[in-house]
């Protein structure tokens, strides 16, 4: 006897039973208790054939390979830099992943100093507590001046929009340089403070109203008004 006890895209809470029977397989955010598959996170159910998973709605950023993230240097050691990327553990940027060539024993603050904000890419997540990032690659660098704001990581796809529609619209309209990290940090650099503030306000609005239909059109209108 196999039965699905919930519907796809339903919100579930920890301890809620999702399916009965051995034909379904538990994936991310779920566990099996004898015959039953139970959720262990607050999130949205996704059923793919017989695999059930719960996509979390809240929580800290969980690093995934190839994610672009924005972080702040919190520590410098012999091996490289420790970077806070808003996940449970700081990420490691080792010397050989930083730039072309750094001499042994060189002063590392020359490249990235304490408190510097950098855009980086996740290259390895062996376990949750060892995250390796790199700054080699297009667009990955130290972010000089500008503003960094934080949003909930689960809302990042909304900020970007379908095929980047939302973000490119804001960029074009305000002329600001915007970089969105998958960890929910957004770097904004504009031609003027007013422009930066406008983008900040708009991003706050997207975060608040991320559930509304036709949000892109609404933001477009707002941008035109403000100009």
């Amino acid at each position, binding site marked *: 006897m196999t039965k699905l006890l919930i519907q796809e*895209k339903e*919100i579930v*809470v*920890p*301890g*809620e*039973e999702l399916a009965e029977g051995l034909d379904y397989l538990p994936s991310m*955010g779920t*566990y099996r208790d004898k015959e039953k598959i*139970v959720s*262990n*996170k*607050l*999130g*949205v159910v996704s059923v793919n054939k017989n695999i059930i998973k719960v996509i*979390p*709605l*809240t*929580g*800290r950023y969980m690093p995934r390979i190839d994610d672009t993230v924005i972080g702040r240097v919190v520590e410098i050691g012999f091996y490289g830099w420790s970077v806070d990327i808003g996940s*449970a*553990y*700081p990420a490691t940027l080792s010397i050989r992943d930083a730039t072309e060539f750094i001499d042994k024993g060189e002063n590392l603050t020359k490249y990235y100093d304490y408190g510097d904000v950098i855009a980086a890419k996740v290259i390895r997540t062996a*376990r*949750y*507590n060892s995250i390796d990032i790199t700054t080699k690659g297009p667009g990955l660098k130290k972010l000089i001046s500008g503003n960094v704001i934080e949003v909930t990581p689960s809302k990042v796809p909304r900020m970007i929009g379908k095929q980047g529609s939302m973000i490119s619209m804001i960029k074009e309209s305000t002329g600001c340089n915007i970089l969105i990290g998958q960890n929910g940090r957004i770097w904004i650099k504009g031609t003027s403070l007013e422009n930066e503030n406008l983008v900040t306000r708009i991003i706050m609005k997207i975060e608040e109203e*991320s*559930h*509304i*239909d036709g949000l892109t059109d609404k933001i477009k209108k707002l941008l035109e008004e403000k100009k």
Partner: protein
Amino acid sequence: MTSYDKRFSGRKFDEMREIEAKVGIIKRADGSALFRIGDTIAIAAVYGPRELHPRFMQNPETGILRCNYDMTTFSVPERKRPGPNRRGVEISLVTEKSLLPVVELKQFPNAVVDVFIEIIQANSGTRCAGISAAALALAHAGIPMKDLVAAVSVGKVGEKVLIDLDKEEEDVEDATDIPIAVTGRKQDITLLQLDGNVTKKDLVEAIKLAKHGCKKINEIQQKALKDAYKSEVKNE
């Protein structure tokens, strides 16, 4: 022994006070919740998982849970001296132990999840309200949990076994107060405290009553969590 055949508040013996639950009340926390039962209000904030300091407390096998229970100075009629006290330390500990069976921190070695519970208004059953609020806040913070936990106090006042004692009932001579925490799905008991006298028969009855009450609280908790995100998921 005082006879007690009608409750001071006019409630039925198996009737709890009015319950309200809300999540997301503290913006800067990773997860937060408010839980009100009658005049008792508890708020809980969860931070983490994050790196644990001091370092010697780190456990490379699993993450740890750290609970902190405190009452605000204005929560009781007579001003409570601020800061931790003996009672607060004990309740912090039992709260931690009652939540530990459900949280899964194995995937966060060396890390800590901090839970801060603050009672902003007290009228008995504060540790139970605190546990219910903390469970909500943990779920809201996205911590992996096997189950939710709900807690309620049951007790014996006079000759009667009843649920959710208020201050007036607690102060009755020979009243016994038994806080019980129960998981949502399997109805396992994760906390049971008792001081005072109670017969075996009464205790069994009290546990039954508590399980029934916790089931109701669990439904309210589930609703609170779902309502907070209902509008967001609807249109995606």
